[in-house]
């Protein structure tokens, strides 16, 4: 069974999306666009063009370039909307034998489903190219006010395109799904405000929880079929042309290329003003007359734009009120308001909606794609995919062990999808350390003590060796049920110990959130702590290494060198007690220098002897090679007294 895709078959633009790995994903078409114009053209040489191609040749082929077919699908010829449309479009709309509205193209009569099928075919192909497999099933959206005949006709269009339409869902419902409004408990009343390119639709829907399932019901719809983003652009274009005329006595409306540039600039400016309070429209060489070339440079403020379109936004308010009245609801009955359609990105629109409803609208889903995304979500539910996704969980907090310096070393990062397994190699902190304690921690703080202790165990009988030599492989295995298996194995002896930590021994949701908040609040502090510990460990190694070197050097070291090194080591140990970062660093420097001379001597001596190099000369900070996990092996605390 292949994937079921979700298609938003719009009046001006269409969009296709599919669920991938539990995430809805809008698919780009072959031209790289995320939406495709709902335009279909039948050319002289028998080609059928769909999308941008069809749009680009509209001027050369007006009677056979079809757009806004959605206004005709499923309607009778005598329908008011159809009659109005006839006056607005350049292609021929005629009556079929059964009274339906059909379109005449190159002398042939076509049913609207046939025409829309071409758009659906392109969306199908787009999905197939992306998925790399055949697509035969889809969910298609329609306006909430579509009647049975229109819904059936849309389904037919799907069939003609080779798609088994698993379900026809309402656009506002799809938008609500995209916003995850079906995940909330209980019932909710949602207002969907859809202001797109050419039409405005407002719907009041009720989401009811029945036996654990969510059911959607459209309570009322209203709108304005001739109000959209393009009207906003028109206001800006007219303003720009008027201003230009004032200074240059030229009407740009009559120059097709100038008008086109104005249109693009107006749309661009409108979009920029959603994010800035001011923008500049700069169009050099916009036109020319006998005096030479003319340029258009104008500043446009957000305030000015708002004054130009204020009444348009105001026009959307009364349909909302009517819809509420029809649903017998008041503003306070509305639980959520969601915004759909590109024009809702405008701050003025958001403000007006907010002041009407008395609350902020949800707009976190891309308003151009919300409907397609909702269709994809519905498609995935029908395909049974969504349940699979629910099986995957994440671990909410990091898991790790305590290492030298009371630091928490993370093995599994928070928000890792489970089940998961991670191993890392650690080592001993002291020479001849024969046991290590594995203290399992959960949390985000760097200081071990600040995190939640989940349990601990010891691994014993480690053969005596210099510190940093033994390789202890620690494995964290977190299964799908949240049960954590922690094991520690001495690679040399093969001896292993482990502990099982049940999921319930962790933290509650609230505690988890608190921990994460704490970690963020203390991040500076934790960072300093981590640096300090790192420094301490380094200093420790240095002291240890220096003393060891002295031992091994024996009489090769002069009395002065011995004294210098011993003193430096003692001073460093003192500094460590104080916890003064700069002091420690300075003393480390001193000690390094003091031991440097001796080290040099030792190397020269060995080179002369041509013997193997000394083992732990590097202070044991690095892992002994071989193991892949031992990238940054660290040291462990030992607790000799308890033997479990």
């Amino acid at each position: 069974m292949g994937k079921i895709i979700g298609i938003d078959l719009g009046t001006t633009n269409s969009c296709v999306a599919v669920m991938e790995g539990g995430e809805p994903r809008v698919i780009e078409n072959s031209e790289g666009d995320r939406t495709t114009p709902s335009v279909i053209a039948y050319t002289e040489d028998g080609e059928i063009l769909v999308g941008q191609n069809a749009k680009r040749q509209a001027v050369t082929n007006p009677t056979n370039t079809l757009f806004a077919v959605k206004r005709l699908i499923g309607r009778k010829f005598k329908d008011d909307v159809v009659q109005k449309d006839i006056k607005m479009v350049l292609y021929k709309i005629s009556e079929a034998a059964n009274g339906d509205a059909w379109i005449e193209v190159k002398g042939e009569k076509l049913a609207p489903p046939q025409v829309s099928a071409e758009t659906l075919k392109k969306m199908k192909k787009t999905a197939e190219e992306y998925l790399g497999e055949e697509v035969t099933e889809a969910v298609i959206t329609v306006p909430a006010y579509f009647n049975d005949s229109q819904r059936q006709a849309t389904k037919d269009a799907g069939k003609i395109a080779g798609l088994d339409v698993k379900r026809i869902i309402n656009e506002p419902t799809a938008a609500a799904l995209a916003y995850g409004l079906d995940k909330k408990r209980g019932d909710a009343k949602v207002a969907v405000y859809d202001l797109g390119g050419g039409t405005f639709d407002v719907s009041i829907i009720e989401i009811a929880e029945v036996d654990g399932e969510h059911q959607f019901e459209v309570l009322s719809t209203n709108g304005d079929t001739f109000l959209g983003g393009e009207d906003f652009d028109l206001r800006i274009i007219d303003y720009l042309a008027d201003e230009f005329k004032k200074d240059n006595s030229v009407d740009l409306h009559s120059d097709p290329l100038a008008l086109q540039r104005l249109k693009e600039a107006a749309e661009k400016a409108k979009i920029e003003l959603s994010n800035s309070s001011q923008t500049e429209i700069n169009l050099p060489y916009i036109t020319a007359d006998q005096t030479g070339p003319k340029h258009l440079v104008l500043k446009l403020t957000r305030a000015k734009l708002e004054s130009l379109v204020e009444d348009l936004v105001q026009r959307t308010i009364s349909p909302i009120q009517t819809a509420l009245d029809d649903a017998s609801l008041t503003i306070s009955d509305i639980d959520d308001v969601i915004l759909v359609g590109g024009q809702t990105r405008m701050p003025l629109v958001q403000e007006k909606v907010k002041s009407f409803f008395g609350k902020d609208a949800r707009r976190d889903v891309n308003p151009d794609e919300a409907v397609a995304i909702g269709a994809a979500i519905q498609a995935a539910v029908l395909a049974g995919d969504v349940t699979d996704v629910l099986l995957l969980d994440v671990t909410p907090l990091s898991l790790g062990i305590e290492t030298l310096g009371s630091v928490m070393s993370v093995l599994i990062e928070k928000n890792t999808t489970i089940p998961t397994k991670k191993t890392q190699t650690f080592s001993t902190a002291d020479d001849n350390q024969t046991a290590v304690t594995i203290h399992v921690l959960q949390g985000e703080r760097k200081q071990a003590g600040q995190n939640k202790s989940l349990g601990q165990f010891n691994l014993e009988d480690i053969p005596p060796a210099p510190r940093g030599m033994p390789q202890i492989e620690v494995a964290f295995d977190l299964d799908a049920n949240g049960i954590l298996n922690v094991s520690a194995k001495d690679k040399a002896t093969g001896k292993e110990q482990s502990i099982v930590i049940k999921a319930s021994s962790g933290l509650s949701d609230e505690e988890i959130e608190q921990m994460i908040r704490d970690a963020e609040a203390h991040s500076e502090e934790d960072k300093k702590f981590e640096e300090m510990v790192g420094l301490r460990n380094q200093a420790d190694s240095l002291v240890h290494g220096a003393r060891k070197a002295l031992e091994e050097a024996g009489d090769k070291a002069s009395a002065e060198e011995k004294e210098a090194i011993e003193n430096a080591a003692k001073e460093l140990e003192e500094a460590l007690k104080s916890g003064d970062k700069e002091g420690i660093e300075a003393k480390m420097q001193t000690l390094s220098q003091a031991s440097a001379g001796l080290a040099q001597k030792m190397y020269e001596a060995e080179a002369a002897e041509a013997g193997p190099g000394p083992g732990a000369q590097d202070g044991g900070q690095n892992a002994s090679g071989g193991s892949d996990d031992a990238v940054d092996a660290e040291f462990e605390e030992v607790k000799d007294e308890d033997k479990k």
Partner: protein
Amino acid sequence: MAQDQNNHDNPDTPADQAEAGTQDTGEATAEAEQAGAAEIAELKDQVLRSLAEMENVKRRASRDIENAHKFAVEKLLSDLFPVVDSLEKAVETAEQTEGAQPIAEGVALSLKLFVDTLAKSGVEQIDPLGEPFDPQVHEAMTMVPNPAAEPNSVMDVMQKGYLLNGRLVRAAKVIVAKAPDA
């Protein structure tokens, strides 16, 4: 050896009693086995699906990355094209203006530099004057009767088009000739 549990030869032996016992639980065991087998089959299916989906996601991810590399600059470039347009107009104007020769030359060279630099990034200009109209890469602004030109050919280029690594970023805005009405 020790008595075999499945020894059928002695009906009175404890083994047989054990067997009688196993017969009652035999059905239960068979059921449990079936349920187990069914669960295994389902889990196997899920695992295979997950693996397959992972393969698909990997493949798509690498394709997304490839596309991102190829077309990352698309937005930036489409914002720069109007600059080229303006420079072209500037050159045109300067060439027609008395005494603007030095400026014309300078601007023309700047324009050339700009276009050459764009070309290095995979940008190709579409300048289809005289060619047949192709909606894949041209946008018809208007159609004008023209006896001198081939019908459906581009008789004027109002704005050049651009391709980025073969993908259309901006269609050329053209005026298309049509046969004059007889």
